């Protein structure tokens, strides 16, 4: 099995450990990730706030490259939820609107690219839960994680607005994966509540309150696992400041899902880049 791989900018920078652990995980699973040649930024939340066409054309560029890489490799796998949504949106909107597709292709044409809409855009969580599944993972689990109670945090953009692989309001897809490691699932109400996203840059005081509510909701759990670099950095980057303003200790380990699964599969901690996380992961060393 092979997937086209779109890491996205974050996974080259602030979320390197997400990239590293994802690759490590798939390596153990025996699945090849083929990085899209010369992929470019998806536009993040900036493009859509500046220009409608740009917000489609930017991700479309990477999609078109992916298509040019042939049909032998399967779907496009995207770990970053923001990239996933932007790529997916470009794919869906151009499929619905032929005029838009034509305009996008007008932009792409000078580079010798053409978007045809052949590739499916899949989120990492989608692939893990549907293509591999808890059973598929179980074969590779060597270390029980029974000591841990884990709070699955889905965030927004892998679930919404496109309802693809899970209930956008009450998602459950992470649960079998966590359970497969032997760990327990922390039942909570915050699993889909927005982390504040780019508000953290623009209105940090607002976003930090949102994160505080999420961290409070996870009390009792040993860790939160995420599937989005934005969520990850927002949840772990400001724990000190948030604890101070909430007058409560809200520190909590935050891991990327492949990091957590990787631990259960016995992958070396360094190969999962656990040391790069901003939150204190001593409980997992």
């Amino acid at each position: 099995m092979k997937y086209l791989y779109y890491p996205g900018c974050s996974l080259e920078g602030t979320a390197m450990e997400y990239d590293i652990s994802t690759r490590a995980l798939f390596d153990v699973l025996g699945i090849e990730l083929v990085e899209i040649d010369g992929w470019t930024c998806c536009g993040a939340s900036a493009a859509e706030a500046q220009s409608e066409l740009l917000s489609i054309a930017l991700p479309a560029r990477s999609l078109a490259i992916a298509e040019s890489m042939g049909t032998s490799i399967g779907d496009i796998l995207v770990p970053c939820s923001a990239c996933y949504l932007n790529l997916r949106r470009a794919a869906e909107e151009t499929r619905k609107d032929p005029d838009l597709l034509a305009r996008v292709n007008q932009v792409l044409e000078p580079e010798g690219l053409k978007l045809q809409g052949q590739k499916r855009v899949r989120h990492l969580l989608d692939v893990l839960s549907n293509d591999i599944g808890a059973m598929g993972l179980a074969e590779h689990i060597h270390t029980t994680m029974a000591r841990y109670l884990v709070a699955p945090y889905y965030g927004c953009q892998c679930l919404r607005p496109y309802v693809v692989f899970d209930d956008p309001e009450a998602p459950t897809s992470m649960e079998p994966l966590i359970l497969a490691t032997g760990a327990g699932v922390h039942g909570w109400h915050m699993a889909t509540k927005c982390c504040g996203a780019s508000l953290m840059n623009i209105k940090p005081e607002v976003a930090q309150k949102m994160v505080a509510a999420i961290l409070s909701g996870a009390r009792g759990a040993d860790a939160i696992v995420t599937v989005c670099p934005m969520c990850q950095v927002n949840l772990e980057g400001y724990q000190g400041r948030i604890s101070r303003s909430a007058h409560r200790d809200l520190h909590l380990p935050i891991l990327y899902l492949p990091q957590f699964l990787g631990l259960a599969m016995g992958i070396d901690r360094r190969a999962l880049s656990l040391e790069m996380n901003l939150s204190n992961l001593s409980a997992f060393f």
Partner: protein
Amino acid sequence: MAEKSGSALVIGAGISGLRSAIDLAETGYHVFLVDKAPHIGGILEQLDHQFPTNRCGMCKLLPAVEPDQASQQCLRRGLFHGNIEILASAEVMDISGEAGNFCATLHQHPTLVDPNRCMGCGQCAEACPVEVKDTFNAGLSTRKAIYQPAPQALPGTHVIDLSACTHCGECVSVCPTGAIRMAAADRKKFKILVADEASSVREQLQTLMAGEGFLVDTAESGEAALEKLKSEAFHLVLLDIKMPDMEGVDVLKEALAVQPSLQVVMTTACAAVQSAVESIKAGAADYLVKPFSEDFLLPQIYRFYEESGKGRQRELSVGAVIIATGCRYFNPAEGKDIFGYGLYPDVVTHLAFERLISGTGPFGGRLVRPSDRRPVNKIAWIQCVGSRDLQTDSDFCSSICCMSAVKEAMLAREIGGGQVETVIFHMDLRVFEKPFQQYLDDAKRSGVRFQRCRVHSVACSEDGARLAIRYVDMDGAREALFDLVVLSVGQRPAEDAEKFSEMLGLELNPWGYLAPRPFSLTETSAPGVFLGGAVSGLTDINDAVIRAGAAACGASKAIHKSGGSLETVESADDGRDRDINREEPNILVILCVCGDRLKALIDMDVLLDRIQTEPAVSQCLEVDGLCSPDGWAKMLEELKDKPVNRILLATCAANAYAHRRLEIADAAGLPEAAVQIKDVFPSDWFAGGAPAKEQTPYNTGYVERCLKLAIAGLKGIHWGPAEKIPVYQSALIIGGGIAGMTAALAIAGHGFRVDLVEKAEQLGGNLNWLGRTIDGADVAERLQTTVSRVNDNSLIHVHLNSTVADIRGSVGRFQSTIGEGKNAQTGHHGAVLLATGGVEGATESYGYGKSPAVMTQKAFETARSEGRIDPAALSSVAMIQCVDCREPPRNYCSRVCCLSSLKHAMYLKEQNPDLSVYILYRDMMTPGFYETYYTQARRKGIIFFPYTPEAKPEVVVPGQNGDGASRLRIRANDPIIGQSVEIEADLLILATGITPVLPGDLMSKLRAEVDEHGFFKEADFKWRPVESLAAGVFACGLALSPRLIDESMASAEAAAMRAVRMINRQYLTAGRKIAVVRHSLCSGCQLCISACPYGAREIDPEFGRIEVNPLKCQGCGACAAICPNSATVLAEGSETEMFEMIDAAMGPV
């Protein structure tokens, strides 16, 4: 009884189906009433309370004139009508042929219980080990696999739920009458082939099913399976969807080619469910998901086994078909489930709530939470769940939920003694029918709270004890806690809609409902096939009953047109009319002794001795085993030539025999009333609860007392010759608008003369100025066709420029004076229909009359059609809804105005997209599929401002207050932005609604009532919506209430059907249970006249005596109760009889 040749098929025995069936049966046709469910009544079986009375009232569907045609008993218990054959648990598989000559193929689902033997004792259900969710109680409780489908139905015949029954046989062994058939012998002949690659599956299934006695063979590949199917016949194949050598679907197709009648069930793993669903389309009977548990699998196998039994197909020849299969409801657990339905047990649908508060419901009528049975203090209703929601593909309104929520909230408050807090979260309140607004006001007064918003979500409260509703008010998002949340779930099309659409080539609307033709609510594109009730969109009871009447009318016309005779045939005298009043009571007592069991418990000699001393008893007959067909037949045999005039059948479980009373009566040559079936000992005497032997004297006394009570009652049975009143076989219709003309055509279509009286110089009424309907149908064209059909019909006599000057008489015999002066004619009619219509309401509000720019909707419509409106010359138009409406004194919604405004607004916007249109409204009344026009109007950019009666818009007319402005100015408030806005408009269109035109003098001469707004007062708004309590007087169209054109026409057809039923015979037969006056005792206090709800009594002007009209009298007994000295009595139930019965009941034990 008079009979008419011709028969009809009514599919679906809910309210609508029942109404159609009874209408047709009363008119004399034979009706097959088919329902998939094992009981009749549809959803009404589950609803105890209906708005606006908060009670039931279904019995009002029963015939009121000639009441003896049907058993006058609670319809939720059952319907027994001589002309109606009820086929429960049956499904229509195919219909072929044409109007007047259809052939319908029926499949009878097995219930495994013989209804002729089952006495409803319930011992089987006690013994049954299988417990499943009780769908009757909306899943709030459980029931057994063998169960009584509706708790109130009589006799309480049980059925087996084949999807749950494991065929363990426990019930068979406890059934005292051997009513349950679960013979193992036939299973050896039922051949099953298991085709699966996995040997483990093959072995599991083979062991399991062979263990049950079936003949099982296996195949490991598709090729092998086909080989076996080619060589021998199988009944059932369990086929894996993925065979090693070929796709399961291909195996299926080939298998069906080899054995077309083969039942193939696909087996599949979870992941391949999608392809399993596709295989159904390819002809598979069903699919099952692996892995199977035994408990799940066996019932399914048995289901196929039982369904394949012989004699399940039946063919019916009918002249017309009415489809009244109702609708389904939205399942809020589907999709996003934002309200936590299925997740939190205290989130229920409105149907479940009805069961929850029902006395026969899971909690005995107590208002408690399903989760923990604790009392409920605060309830929320969430409206528009799966309605008016594009997210759930429901761009329609479900029409009934506003009122049902209001009703439920009022009931909850009543049950809770006013302590229960009730909040309804709603969008628009759709109070679009005549009594709705007033009911809503009552609810507000009684303390029901209303919150206008769309609820965002329901979640568990933080402490986990309650439900938190998240919603928005003008201040932003809020959260409120409740104990119970009721979801007003919207409609979804009937499961069968698509099937019938394919079967008969019927049209479906965009949401999958069977769609009627333009200008009709019931006619389909297939002649002879009609739609009734909610199958074409959910309706309230009133509407359903009217549509059912219209459908019956259409069916009746179709049968008549194709040669179904309207000649009445008198059936031979068979004792049913024997006058036993004049005979001394001479009673035969039949006692079922149940083998030796009764003798073991009582002293039979003593009993017989004591009974024989009763002078009225001529003979006492002991019989055995009435619950067996043999015993029953033997008993009937014994009755021949017995010189008795009354029969008492004494048994256990009398209810089980109630519907067979006529058999006994016919066998003995007696009227049915002369036969009584009574319980004289408790059924549990024979079911393990038998009392000890030493109690024999007590037991004997017990039976004696029961017998003597029954004998005393039987002595008082009154069955004389029924009075027959000759009928004028023609109808008078007052009003020549669309309703009057439609009714005239419908009645004339049955071959009767009609006098159609119109006061104007031309026919057509309001249709003369209406151009188009909102759905674009051409009104003028329709009017023209209708007028010429009326004029061309030789049976319809049109009197233009005429009124009815005087009218006398009552049902069957009205005499009228049509016209005045020397042109006056005298008319003789059996029925009178008022179709006098309505006019646009007058107003002085909002500057009307002060400026030509302020006009009514009618004025706009007229100006538009005359080309006096130039949309291009306008830049801004405002409309105000509910002008002088929906508040006292005109406290009703006029139904048509919102649609008119939308129609006008969209017209203007289409003609001139730059034109701004503003609609100021209270609640937009776009029920049903009209909702989509509201959506369209918004999409076209029409801007809507809601207002409340407390803060109405203000209008400043140019020149007023010394104002120099050239345009109208309308000031209103926008609640969302919380600020007032001012609209400058070139034109202001006022929706002033409809007021009725009903001649008061004629109404009082007809003894028919007028409601407080001047509309015709229905005998009952819901159940008898087109007739007056004064029999023989009907109304339709706007005289009844504000309505749209197609609704007016439906009411006209419904009224015509009822009228035809009055005039289609030469004589009307009075009921036998009616009141009589003993003039020698009467003091003339006239209390009885006031007390009679049917206007059946009046003072004879000649003798000053009180007279009873036998056709109008319903034998209710109100007169007898109010008369102090029994000067008026009911035919049955005089004091002497009552005293005797009381005396007997208080006798020794």
